[in-house]
């Protein structure tokens, strides 16, 4: 048995039945990473074996985790994948890091991503691109590229990510992993380096739906250090996760099916059939404001980015602003322009009005249906380097994911099959705080399809 391929659920079972010890598990996983990390480049920082084992030896039920490098980790370098923060060691832990570590999750390293989470392929990292474990010529998607790749490559059973405009769901769909973008405010943002404060959502990658529900139940909940975190009680996501989905009303938003790669559309239709077969009722719905979402998003996001990145002014943190990458500079310029006197009303304010329209549209739709089902990406994973000089095309990769972020509602990306050995994902979008229902539907779908069992053959591919 390869211990690194285990899910969280299997690890917990293994510990309970004394099949293996935590030190055995960690030793095997660290060995697996040692052998394969150079092919993937999932990590920016790896903690040393000594550091990790000093945490593991006392903990008989330790579970390995790695964090996207925009999560502040006390005493562990946190770069946001940008040279401007190289060498920065936070004096404090992000709330979610703290909550996970008190729940026996041991940090083994910090994961690569697009610098400051700006991007859809991971290629905006100043530490080189992360490669897709299913095909090393392809991107794993971004911005949480390292997180998706690390889980897909079985470096960790769980990784943290952030989803500001699709940065968890997109890479999850490219890597055959399960990714949750929770309701805005469900998980504390405290300590996670801000990109777009009003849409940043803290979520997780896992191999299975059950694992994902498990970890969200550890991170979700009100945090007095985040004024935007919600007081809404956290339900038990695992209780009734196997509930049948008979009669669940699933809306198919027709605007989400335009200009989609045909192989993705085929898998999507297959998924509809499977869910229908499982008893769900499928309804056609329309969300006409969808086409404006990407425009609004790419005004609001750079506006907030221009302000959030202003603290890297060359006075503190060691480096001046020339260390910012192209994408950060682009967003700072666009955002500064959008917020300037004379342009604010035409851009920022208008975009916020579009946002309100989108929110209302979702709210009205959820009066008649339980969830929405949509593809995650309009295209299959691009080749490394294919889109790096085409920022507009890259922005369009977010077209199916950003409406959810603008509205602040949750969405779960689950594997929906493969084309030519490359993963395809679908997203289940729900009303505010409906994560429990999303997990139930995801679980029913996963139990039926079991795509997660199709692991990548990194080693073989390397030998080719």
């Amino acid at each position, binding site marked *: 048995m390869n211990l690194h391929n285990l899910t969280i659920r299997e690890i917990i079972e293994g510990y309970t039945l004394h099949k293996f010890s935590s030190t055995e598990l960690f030793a095997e996983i660290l060995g697996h990473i040692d052998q394969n990390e150079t092919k993937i480049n999932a990590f920016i920082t790896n903690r040393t074996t000594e550091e990790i084992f000093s945490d593991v030896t006392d903990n008989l039920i330790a579970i390995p985790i790695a964090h996207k490098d925009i999560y502040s980790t006390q005493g562990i370098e946190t770069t946001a994948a940008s040279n401007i923060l190289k060498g920065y060691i936070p004096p404090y832990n992000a709330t979610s890091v703290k909550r996970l570590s008190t729940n026996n999750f041991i940090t083994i390293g910090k994961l690569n991503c697009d610098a400051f989470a700006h991007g859809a392929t991971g290629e905006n990292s100043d530490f080189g691109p992360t490669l897709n474990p299913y095909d090393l010529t392809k991107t794993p998607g971004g911005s949480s590229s390292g997180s998706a790749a690390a889980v897909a490559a079985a470096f960790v059973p769980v990784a943290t990510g952030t989803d500001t405009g699709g940065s968890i769901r997109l890479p999850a769909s490219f890597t055959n992993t399960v990714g949750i973008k929770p309701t805005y405010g469900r998980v504390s943002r405290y*300590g996670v*380096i*801000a990109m777009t*404060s009003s849409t940043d959502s803290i979520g997780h990658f896992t191999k299975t739906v059950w694992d994902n529900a498990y970890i969200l139940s550890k991170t979700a909940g009100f945090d007095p250090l985040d*004024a935007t975190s919600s007081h809404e009680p956290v339900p038990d996501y695992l209780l009734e996760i196997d509930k049948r989905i008979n009669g669940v009303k699933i809306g198919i938003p027709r605007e989400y099916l335009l200009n989609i790669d045909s192989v993705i559309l085929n898998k999507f239709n297959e998924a509809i059939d499977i869910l229908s077969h499982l008893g769900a009722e499928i309804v056609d719905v329309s969300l006409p404001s969808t086409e404006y979402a990407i425009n609004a998003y790419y005004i609001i996001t750079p*506006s907030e980015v*221009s*302000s959030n990145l202003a*603290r890297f002014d060359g*006075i503190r943190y060691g480096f001046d602003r020339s260390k910012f990458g192209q994408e950060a500079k682009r967003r700072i310029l666009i955002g500064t322009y959008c917020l300037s006197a004379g342009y604010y009303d035409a851009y920022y304010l208008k975009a916020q009005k579009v946002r309100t329209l989108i929110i209302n549209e979702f709210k009205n739709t959820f009066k008649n249906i339980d969830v929405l089902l949509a593809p995650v990406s309009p295209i299959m994973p691009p080749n490394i380097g294919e889109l790096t000089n085409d920022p507009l095309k890259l922005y369009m990769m977010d077209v199916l994911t950003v409406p959810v972020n603008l509205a602040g509602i949750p969405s779960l990306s689950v594997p929906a099959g493969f084309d030519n050995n490359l993963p395809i994902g679908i997203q289940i979008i729900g009303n505010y705080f409906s994560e429990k229902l999303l997990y139930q539907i995801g679980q029913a779908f996963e139990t039926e399809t079991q795509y997660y069992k199709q692991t990548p053959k990194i080693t073989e591919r390397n030998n080719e």
Partner: protein
Amino acid sequence: MNNYVAVIGLEIHIQLKTKSRMFGNASNDVWQTSPNSITSPVDIGLPGALPVPNKEAIRYTQQFGYVLECTINKQSKFDRKNYFYPDLPKGYQISQYDEPFCSNGLLDIKVNNQVKTIRIRRIHLEEDTGKSLHIDGRTLLDFNRSGTPLMELVTEPDFASADEASEFAKIIQEAVVILGISDADMEKGNMRLEANISVKKQDQSDLPNYRVEVKNINSFKFMRNAINYEIDRQIKALEIGEILNQETRGWDEKKGITFIQRSKENAHDYRYFPEPDIPPFVFDDEYINELSQNLPKMPWVYELELIESGVNEPFANQIAHNQEKNQMYLQLVRENPQKSQNEIAKVVINRKSINEMRDYLNKQLDQSVSSKNTILTEDQILAVINIFPDAVNDLKAGKSNALQFLIGQIMREHKGQVDAATLPSVLIRLIGGSN
């Protein structure tokens, strides 16, 4: 030159003495602490740190607004004010742009015995910056002050003189101290003044189309000097046909002049937008009503109450604006329920220690116990003798029958129910005649 009038508005920054900072949980008590020793991730804007608004600071601001007769806005929010400065660690200041906590207040001031109502445009809340220390050609940064709750009061341009502006600022200082929301110690920078000054021709009805902002004034005296200097400078400039522009100036107390800091062309575009890290506020009636419960009495309210209870205006004013005197006054009123409050107020103002006051009042008491009649207040006495100016003049001239005449008039006015024993000395003291 007399045909010009000054148009002046004030902006007053006041640090609130809350337990913790405006948005972070570091202690707010940082006076004379070593630089950068008291900070939290939030206060120094570390990546990922998030602001959580200090409810106490918001409440203080609203209470201040309440005593200044402001509207306490039911909806309010914070905004980001974006600008670069080395001691501004996030590259933006969390402030309030278009929805301050309080707006449209009023405060009466009295200068040269003229009461004038000053309109308060708004009171909002923001975070203080760090401090830049320029030492030996280097600039050092201390972030201990960063994130201190800072309240900003903005008046309408209702002042016409340095004296009016100064009087207003003094009352504001007193009010925040009495409310217990700030020490308002100007030397410590707890309270900082900015004046917007322009001048116009007396017959010009609309406001001037420019204003000169004089920033960072840290004493009432400096403010008066700066305003007077500016009024003078601007009138002279207009007289020789200069066109004055919007600009920011500093005050050099040593040279006694203002100097230009920033012209209109270099004005900042702060790119305000709603602070996404802090949800907007909605305050309900219950909260707003509850705010005003158990607030200490403001001196201007107390002064009116004293006057209503018979205390002469100058005494009332001094007692209302002097905590120490007021304590003694209240104590003596309790001890001497039979005495008029004006008599006690007068004694309090004219004597130094409470024992002196007590002695004086007891002496008066000894004299009066001998009589079953009441002792008149000075007001009552003056009210009678003012009707007889000739007799007063005679008394001044030393004619003793005038004294008897006036006593007789007083006795008659009060139907004989008066202790006549003290009247001669009181009359002589009041009129100042030689006996």
